[in-house]
């Protein structure tokens, strides 16, 4: 069963706008990661944020983590058509346990 939930399940925005996706989880984490998946193929790692970090940036991506609320958000700024994909958050619970537990994903569509 999925241990995390992304919100919203689907999001459509105009090219150039910002997209925000949220992820909630239930148990404590070692780190949380965001992945992108195009057309049901392999997952591409976007960014990793550790439990002692609150915010992280990578290019047009900004991830925040609130461990007290057990939630994370992914912000994509100045969206492009190529950002159309499904986005998943995945968490690792315990150090040495490298099993990724994925959420249900957000389907992002960028309208040109």
């Amino acid at each position: 069963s999925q241990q995390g939930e992304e919100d919203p399940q689907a999001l459509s925005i105009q090219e150039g706008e910002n997209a925000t996706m949220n992820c909630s989880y239930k148990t404590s984490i070692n780190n949380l990661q965001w992945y992108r998946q195009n057309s049901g193929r392999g997952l591409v790692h976007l960014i990793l944020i550790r439990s002692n970090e609150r915010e992280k940036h990578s290019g047009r991506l900004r991830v925040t983590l609130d461990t007290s609320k057990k939630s994370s958000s992914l912000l994509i700024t100045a969206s492009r058509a190529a950002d159309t994909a499904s986005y998943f958050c995945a968490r690792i619970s315990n150090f040495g346990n490298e099993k990724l537990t994925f959420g249900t994903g957000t389907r992002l569509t960028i309208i040109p």
Partner: protein
Amino acid sequence: DAGVTQSPTHLIKTRGQQVTLRCSPKSGHDTVSWYQQALGQGPQFIFQYYEEEERQRGNFPDRFSGHQFPNYSSELNVNALLLGDSALYLCASSLAGRVGEQFFGPGTRLTVL
């Protein structure tokens, strides 16, 4: 530097048959994890192999088994296929002891008829 590779890309089987999927990890990686992704869902962890042994297992029946070879490549075997086994099977590689990102292959799309 080759990334994670998987074969075959697509596979069609009938109920009751057996299937073997293959994965070669990214160069330098020693740990392989397998995930099942049903249509419209997030990937679910099947099991993980390190040093040729199953190190962790998710909530999957014994019909799902695996193997890791000395060169770190891995196989996923599924026996007595059910219609519900139709999914994208993803392999991910990583380096043991480093709790970080995992590198995913393109996946094998399995269809059970």
